[in-house]
């Protein structure tokens, strides 16, 4: 039987996240059961058979005749019956547009379109926008302007944009549409990576005729896999369809706190079309959040599996639930984890291993390992409380909300046992390598008998870093049924257990002397990671203003809510929301430019380069004085800075194979939209002086040499040096060969080896050659790391820096904050793929805007039921919410880093909320303390 899921953290390569929550092992361990005699061909167990409807339609130009179940949506028909998987299911209720198709040339949401509505209509999907082998101008533009990251939303955007393009050009010819016109046309599409700036640019340019004809044989695309993504050819885990594949569905607790008295799935297993069931309680008997996984059932299709879930006999003793930190801290609140053993079972919401900490009721902590000169910090604050005239003391409590990762591709897994002791797992994951190890361990398999595949991953942001229950369920159901099983979370499930950034309450004090020199920082952070533990944010204060004394501590306040997970820059957005606003207040009181004050505090070389850049900006120098506008609309400009760790995965390897077929680079890494393929191709191509497109990249397969997790901003920093090393070994070998071939020593030049009599190309050298193979490793940095590698991750000796300026307009009448412009400075060393880095940086800024203004997971305060269960109520930023953006990279520094690149994915998302807070205060005098800045909060704040 299977061991429980590991509780190790990302730093060690993997973690529990929302996993098995209950370790009280009085009940039996993981149990699964195969249905006695499933009737394979009988779907829809619970409903009476309905007569199919006959449809005549044109699909991408070809007449089709189909019989469909009248309850089906067009989305189901397009994806399952027609096999056109460029059309994606994401939100399921018309909010995200990933399923956009053209119905008689008009974009509609296929998820809300009854299949029968297609009768006698023309249906066009992304696959049919251009003749086979050709591209629509919008597709060319998306490729050339890099209007995409993970690519999951891209087909929907391309479809909607193609209709706009046609209409615009018919009405306006070659005139370029303005940004807001494009945004209005694409308001029905969401991109969680937030590649919006590139999308707007692509649509503007294509609509003005810039991409009418192919420039060359291929449009020059900065992103290696752009063509697959804009054409819908890229296959994500949700698109995998194996013969006889079953669909698995998860039964979840409707109650936030309950004791499981009985679970009986015998009636469910007896239903026709039902193949097997697996228990997901892992022997536990206590439910600690609404939506917690109880069991999963595999059936011939999703409806049959859902009907089977409804037939499970469930006896739950409902217990009083504590929802939120206030309830959990109230006098007499019953402990969520009453015993030592149950506390050990609490899910790990952090990236690292959990340290043993004390518990007081539902409060776990303090975690204060990273304080420095603690007493001095405390005394500096206390002194100013007694004698305020001796300096500036800024104190306050800053609150933040729960933010959900909500990648547009939900958590998804298709598992298939190829032998009794070998399994292949298609998984939407940020770590094919580490998850393969975890699967091997959990099912007691040889590591080389587990293959995890993730060709394309539709976003992760930290929520898909580890082995989680959709994977456990699929693998175990596949094992017990003997058939491939797919488990895909619905959007509501995704917003429940797909991952969340814990809410925080941070009591912060910043003390400076009268001249504005930092004397101390104290912070007490209380985190609501639901029933999860290990959240910390104050450690990040050590990355900032490093010389100052700091008394910093974190606590978890556990309650009956879904557990937190690491989310892009864990702890960063909340703690910088507090710190960077407090610093701004200090600057106001000291009557100092906020940048000059920070320069006094800050020895960090990366940020100091950014300060100088920002001071040179006209827009900053000429910003209007605070509260200049007195009318309804008030503009303000805010600044905040951020810092982030620089991590390396020392085990990372990159393999380069070369032979008559060409050059192939491979590693067990994945591309979640960050650009892994591009970085590998560009790096190897640069060494050999060839085109990146001439390098074949193979990733997303755990059978390759170990690659890094796409998390902790480590991918580029880990892979580039290894890729350079392997490519240089290949190059040197080929130089040797050239010498043997031509009898004279040559030198490597672009495309081959130059020798006294001419140039011999790589192709000539590789033709007829036996295959060559080189494996590059990630050599350590000069001077080593800040700490020796632990759990296969090494924190480097540098702290990366970002500087964020955001200009807002506050509508004091309707409480709406509009971001007008943002300027982002990033000092993260050498930028390998500039277009992609730019897109990723802007995406991080826009996620920060969403965090500041819109996003908020809400639960019913009594039952803990998820209220924001769809992308209609859980509001991520749309294409019209971004303003104008620019990003500036300062590539200096980091001389001792092997490869001179440190990550930027997290760095760019930590400061925007604070910059918006400072901008709002600059505009209106209202100093916000609580996120998100909804209209009601703004109106209340302005009233004072």
């Amino acid at each position: 039987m299977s061991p429980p899921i590991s509780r190790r953290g990302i730093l060690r390569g993997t973690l529990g996240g929302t996993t098995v929550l209950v370790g009280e092992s009085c009940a039996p361990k993981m149990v699964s059961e195969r249905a006695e005699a499933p009737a394979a061909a009988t779907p829809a167990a619970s409903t009476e058979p309905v007569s199919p409807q006959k449809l005549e339609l044109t699909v991408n130009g070809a007449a089709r005749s189909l019989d469909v179940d009248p309850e089906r949506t067009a989305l189901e028909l397009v994806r399952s019956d027609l096999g056109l998987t460029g059309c994606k299911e994401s939100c399921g209720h018309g909010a995200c547009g990933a399923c956009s198709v053209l119905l008689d040339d008009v974009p509609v949401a296929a998820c809300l379109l009854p299949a029968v509505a297609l009768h006698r209509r023309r249906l066009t999907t992304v696959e049919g926008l251009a003749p086979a082998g050709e591209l629509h101008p919008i597709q060319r533009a998306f490729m050339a302007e890099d209007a995409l990251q993970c690519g999951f939303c891209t087909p929907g955007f391309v479809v909607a944009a193609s209709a706009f393009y046609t209409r615009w050009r018919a009405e306006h010819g070659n005139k370029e549409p303005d940004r807001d016109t494009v945004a209005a046309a694409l308001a029905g599409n969401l991109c969680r990576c937030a590649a919006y700036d590139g999308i707007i640019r692509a649509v503007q340019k294509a609509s003005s005729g810039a991409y009418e004809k192919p420039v060359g044989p291929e449009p020059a695309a900065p992103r290696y896999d752009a063509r697959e993504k804009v054409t819908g050819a890229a296959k994500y885990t949700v698109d995998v369809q194996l013969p006889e594949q079953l669909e698995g569905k998860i039964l979840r607790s409707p109650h936030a706190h309950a004791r499981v008295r009985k679970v009986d799935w015998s009636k469910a297993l007896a239903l026709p079309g039902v193949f097997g069931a697996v228990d997901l309680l892992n022997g536990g008997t206590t439910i600690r959040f609404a939506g917690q996984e109880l069991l999963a059932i595999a059936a011939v299709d999703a409806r049959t599996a859902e009907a089977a879930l409804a037939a499970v006999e469930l006896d739950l003793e409902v217990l009083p639930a504590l929802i939120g930190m206030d309830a959990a801290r109230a006098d007499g609140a019953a402990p969520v984890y009453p015993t030592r053993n149950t506390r050990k079972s609490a899910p790990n919401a952090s990236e690292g291993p959990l340290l043993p900490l004390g518990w007081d009721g539902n409060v776990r902590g303090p975690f204060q390992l990273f304080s420095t000169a603690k007493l001095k910090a405390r005394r500096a604050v206390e002194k100013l409380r007694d004698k305020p005239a001796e300096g500036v003391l800024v104190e306050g409590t800053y609150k933040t909300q729960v933010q959900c990762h909500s990648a547009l591709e939900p958590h998804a897994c298709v598992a298939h046992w190829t032998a009794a002791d070998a399994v292949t797992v298609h998984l939407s994951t940020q770590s094919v390598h580490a998850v393969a190890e975890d699967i091997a361990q959990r099912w007691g398999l040889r590591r080389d008998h587990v293959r995890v595949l993730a060709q394309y991953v539709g976003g992760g942001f930290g929520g898909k870093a580890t082995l989680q229950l959709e994977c456990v369920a699929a693998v175990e159901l596949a094992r017990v049924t003997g058939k491939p099983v797919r488990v895909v979370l619905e959007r509501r499930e995704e917003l429940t257990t797909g991952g969340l950034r814990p809410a925080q309450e941070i009591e912060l004090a910043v003390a400076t002397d009268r001249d504005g020199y930092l004397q101390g920082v104290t912070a007490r952070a209380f985190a609501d990671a639901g029933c999860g533990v290990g959240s910390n944010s104050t450690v990040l204060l050590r990355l900032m203003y490093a010389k100052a004394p700091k008394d910093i501590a974190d606590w978890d306040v556990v309650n009956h809510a879904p557990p937190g997970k690491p989310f892009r820059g864990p702890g960063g957005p909340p703690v910088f929301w507090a710190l960077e606003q407090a610093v701004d207040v200090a600057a106001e009181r000291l009557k100092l430019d906020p940048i000059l004050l920070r320069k006094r505090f800050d020895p960090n070389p990366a940020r100091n380069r950014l300060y100088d850049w920002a001071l040179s900006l006209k827009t900053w120098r000429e910003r209007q004085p605070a509260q200049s506008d007195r009318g309804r609309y008030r503009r303000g400009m805010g600044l905040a800075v951020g810092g982030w760790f620089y991590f390396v995965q020392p085990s990372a390897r990159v393999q380069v194979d070369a032979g008559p077929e060409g050059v192939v680079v491979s590693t067990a890494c994945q591309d979640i939209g960050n650009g892994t393929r591009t970085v590998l191709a560009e790096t190897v191509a640069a060494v050999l002086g060839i085109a990146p497109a001439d390098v074949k990249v193979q990733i997303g397969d755990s059978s390759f040499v170990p690659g890094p997790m796409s998390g902790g901003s480590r991918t580029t920093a880990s892979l580039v040096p290894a890729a350079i090393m392997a490519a240089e070994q290949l190059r040197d070998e080929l130089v040797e060969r050239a010498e043997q071939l031509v009898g004279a020593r040559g030198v490597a030049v672009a495309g081959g080896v130059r020798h006294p009599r001419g140039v011999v190309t790589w192709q000539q050298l590789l033709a007829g050659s036996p295959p060559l193979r080189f494996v590059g490793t990630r050599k350590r940095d000069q001077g080593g790391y800040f700490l020796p590698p632990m759990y296969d991750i090494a924190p480097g000796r540098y702290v990366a820096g970002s500087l964020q300026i955001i200009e807002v307009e506050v509508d004091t009448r309707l409480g709406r904050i509009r971001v007008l412009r943002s300027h982002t400075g990033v000092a993260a060393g050498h930028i390998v793929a500039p277009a992609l880095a730019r897109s990723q940086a802007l995406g991080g800024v826009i996620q920060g805007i969403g965090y500041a203004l819109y996003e908020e997971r809400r639960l019913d305060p009594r039952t803990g039921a998820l209220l924001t269960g769809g992308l209609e109520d859980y509001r991520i930023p749309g294409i019209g919410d971004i303003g104008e953006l620019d990003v500036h990279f300062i590539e200096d520094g980091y001389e001792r880093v092997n490869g001179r690149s440190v990550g930027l994915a997290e760095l760019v998302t930590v400061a925007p909320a604070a910059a918006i807070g400072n901008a709002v205060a600059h505009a209106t005098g209202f100093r916000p303390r609580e996120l998100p800045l909804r209209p009601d909060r703004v109106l209340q704040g302005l009233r004072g």
Partner: protein
Amino acid sequence: MTSLELPTSLDAALGRAGEPRAGGTDLTERRRLNLSRGTVIDLRDVPGLDVITWREGQLHLGALVTLAAVAEHPEVRTRYPAVAATAASIATPQIRARATVGGNLLQHVRCWYYRRPGADCLKSGGSGCPARTGDHLFHACFDLGPCVAPHPSSLATALLAHDVRLEVAGDREHTLASLYGDASDARRQHMLPPGALLTGVTLGPPLAAEQAAYVRAISRARAEWPLVEVVVRLVVAADQLQTARVTVGGVANLPLRLAAVENLLVGKPATPETLTAAAAVAADGAKPLTGTAYKLDLLRGAVLDALERALAQTPTQAAPTPAAAPT
């Protein structure tokens, strides 16, 4: 038992037990959530209901006309600008391409306690309103009870600012007031008898020299359900406000007409002072829930905004027929 019926004429569509389906943008989700069960009467093959007609000084919108068509139709845009502006602000382009006039008027509430698996509320047949005592951030501030979800139809808010007749096959002609009733029975989304079908809406003559505006208070730029929405229609003659219609949505389980605001406008000079004084009474009589008091401020602000925006519009053309005198 689940089944689908595809009647090919209006007559054949009447008198059937089941839920009618037009664009399906609301019903599809409710089917999935099991909030709609039983037979679907799909109006796909019913002819003649998807037409916009401008004739004899009246505008007729067939029930199957899409919101996109309403928003783009030249006669609607020029003669009923408030209706066109409202339709253009609803949902997303993809939804507006399918959502219909009839479906928008008869859609079910968006309450997050209702639209979830296992919903247990008045609307879904339960005995209490969990939003009233729970988290009702987006709910009503005019508590007309028992259900506190805002009425979901922005189009109804716009039509309430016009004199409209609702044609119903299988029942008498309705007004918006008779269509929605007094909302005292939370289980009913509308008062149409089973088997009847809303077939279209007729708008009375346009106002000459109308200045109209629609304001939707939301947090993002687009594609959100309104916190508060306001439709304003004004006619200014000889510097005086001759006609004023002010209707609001997002604030009650019915669209509301704000007679008190209108009364403070009509007969007054079209000055900022008049608008401010009128907007100030927009929330009079409101009965907010514990968490929706913020909507009172927002409502006053949105009404003022709509009044100002309306006066900034170019007046519509004079109505074509003498019958179309202002009311």
